[in-house]
């Protein structure tokens, strides 16, 4: 699935790339074609210009000839001015033709011929002018007829026709080229248009496809998210049920364990009570008739029985304390929490006051520093902190003046409280252990069942908090309690 997807994506990407490259190439081709067409157009235009220049020359030539004849016949000065201006313009028209046909050797050859013929004609014309202005009209007429100027004009005309025909031929070729170029341009434009259309269509299709996929995946993501929430809800319910089950189990177990314990303790007491008259009996027998009393019987009544009952009693008392601890924990777990704003300084001062007797005795001090307030369950918070502070007092190092600091600070949406002492400390390997039920660490010289910190941790968890310990042997200990600034219950 993933591989074909990737392959498909790659194909689409390369198709789009090829499409765009093709469009780019088509653009270049189009540009080149347009350029070439412009060239053709310029050449056609050029040919027209040459033809125009040739025609100009021819017109001037005919005008000069007409003006010459008019002058000879009528001696009118206007004809002379006309003739002179035409003769002046002829070289310019010829120069124009020569400039335009610089690329064409055949036409250049013709231009050279025309120039020769023109110069000869100029000489004829000047001769005519001279004769007419001198008043020798008949000579002028005679010269006009016989000097060969008529043949000269005819030759000029022939060459001009030739040059024009040549240009006409070129024009035909160039027009054909122009037409072909326009045809090519049309095709190139059609191909380009089709290509652009194709690429645009393909891109649109791909975008549409992707958009549809995207929408579909977003929709399925939303659905998954909703499912996930449902799943979390379900799991939470399961967990809560399991937790309730454990609480109930702990309660029932501890409760039902108490019942046989009552019997054990009760009948142990009965045994002890029964041992009293037995002891008296042994005393009396020993006084009255010691022979009746065996050593076994004596030691059984005086030593074995009290010892046995003593052990039973001590063990059952311990068991009772443990069961009570479990019971209390399970009860704490079921207690309904009520969040309220707590004045933490006052709360800790209250705890310190309740320990004043002990701290005075030990010469220890409890210093309360900045305590940010929080919204939480009063009983739970009080129990946690009083347990921690009591522990700090309880496990001071003998021979060192006890210094206990209680402080707090806000950390985002949470508040961290610290109870720091300079007491005996806890070995780092025991940091987790001290929070376990019935587990203790270090020298066992203080009474306790290993319940306090387990209780503290259970309470902290219930409030959505975390408790951790930072300590080393002999270095004092810092217990850090992180609670949500506002507990929702």
């Amino acid at each position, binding site marked *: 699935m993933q591989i074909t997807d990737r392959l498909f994506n790659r194909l689409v990407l390369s198709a789009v790339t090829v499409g765009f490259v093709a469009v780019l190439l088509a653009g270049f081709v189009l540009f080149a074609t347009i350029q070439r067409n412009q060239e053709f157009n310029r050449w056609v235009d050029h040919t027209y210009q040459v033809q125009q220049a040739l025609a100009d020359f021819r017109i001037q030539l005919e005008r000069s000839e007409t003006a010459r004849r008019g002058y000879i016949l009528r001696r009118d000065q206007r004809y002379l001015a006309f003739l002179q201006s035409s003769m002046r313009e002829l070289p310019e028209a010829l120069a124009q033709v020569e400039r335009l046909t610089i690329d064409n050797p055949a036409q250049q050859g013709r231009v050279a011929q025309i120039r020769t013929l023109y110069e000869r004609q100029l000489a004829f014309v000047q001769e005519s002018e001279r004769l007419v202005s001198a008043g020798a009209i008949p000579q002028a007429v005679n010269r006009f007829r016989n000097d060969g100027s008529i043949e000269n004009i005819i030759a000029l005309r022939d060459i001009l026709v030739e040059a024009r025909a040549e240009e006409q031929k070129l024009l035909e070729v160039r027009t054909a080229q122009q037409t072909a170029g326009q045809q090519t341009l049309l095709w190139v434009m059609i191909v380009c248009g089709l290509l652009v259309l194709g690429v645009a269509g393909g891109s649109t299709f791909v975008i549409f496809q992707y958009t549809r996929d995207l929408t579909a995946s977003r929709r399925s993501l939303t659905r998954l998210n909703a499912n996930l929430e449902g799943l979390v809800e379900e799991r939470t319910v399961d967990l809560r049920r399991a937790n309730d089950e454990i609480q109930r189990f702990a309660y029932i177990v501890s409760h039902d364990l108490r*019942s*046989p314990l*009552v019997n054990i*303790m009760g009948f*142990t*007491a009965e045994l002890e009570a029964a041992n009293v008259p037995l002891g008296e009996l042994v005393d009396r027998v020993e006084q009255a008739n010691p022979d009746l009393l065996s050593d076994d019987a004596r030691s059984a009544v005086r030593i074995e029985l009290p010892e046995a009952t003593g052990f039973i009693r001590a063990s059952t008392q311990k068991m009772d304390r443990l069961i009570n601890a479990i019971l209390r924990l399970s009860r704490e777990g079921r207690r309904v929490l009520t969040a309220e704003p707590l004045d933490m300084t006052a709360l800790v001062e209250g705890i310190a006051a309740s320990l004043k007797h002990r701290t005075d005795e030990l010469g220890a001090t409890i210093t309360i520093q900045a305590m940010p307030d929080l919204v939480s369950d009063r009983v739970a918070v009080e129990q946690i902190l009083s347990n921690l502070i009591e522990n700090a007092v309880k496990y001071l190092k003998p021979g060192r003046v006890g210094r206990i600091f209680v402080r707090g600070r806000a950390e985002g949406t949470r508040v961290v409280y610290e109870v720091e002492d300079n007491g005996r400390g806890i070995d780092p390997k025991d940091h987790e252990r001290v929070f376990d039920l019935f587990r203790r660490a270090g020298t066992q010289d203080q009474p306790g069942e290993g319940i306090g910190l387990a209780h503290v941790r259970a309470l902290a968890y219930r409030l959505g908090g975390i408790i951790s310990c930072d300590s080393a042997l002999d270095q004092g200990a810092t217990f850090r309690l992180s609670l949500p600034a506002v507990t929702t219950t």
Partner: protein
Amino acid sequence: MSQHVTIVMIEDDEGHARLIEKNIRRAGISNPIRHFLEGTSAVDYLENAPEGPNHNGPALVLLDLNLPDMSGTDILARIKGGDGALKRTPVVVLTTTDDKVEIQRCYDLGCNVYITKPVNYESFAQAIRQLGLFLSVIQVPGDEPTA
């Protein structure tokens, strides 16, 4: 409380029953004690026995809440919820449970006294003996007044 009053003890733990009996006797109570180990036979006795409390036999019930076949609160509800003479029978709940909710429920159902069995035997013995002293002075319906 005269000698005619029968003490009906509903207690599944024989050891407890024995200890309770011993200590009641030590308090000087010599009334007959009917002991039932489970709920069914106890209810049967309370409701149907000719000399039982439902037929005006004077009686006082010592009730444990944790029984194998039915809950002590069910028995309490049956004693206090009926129409006959049975509902006037004093019931002393004597159990290991010190759960607040449970205590409230028992009083709601009409129990007359609720005592938690202390685990510590000295306290236990003390409590039962005090109960015995208490029993010696209370009046039970259906009992002929002591002269």
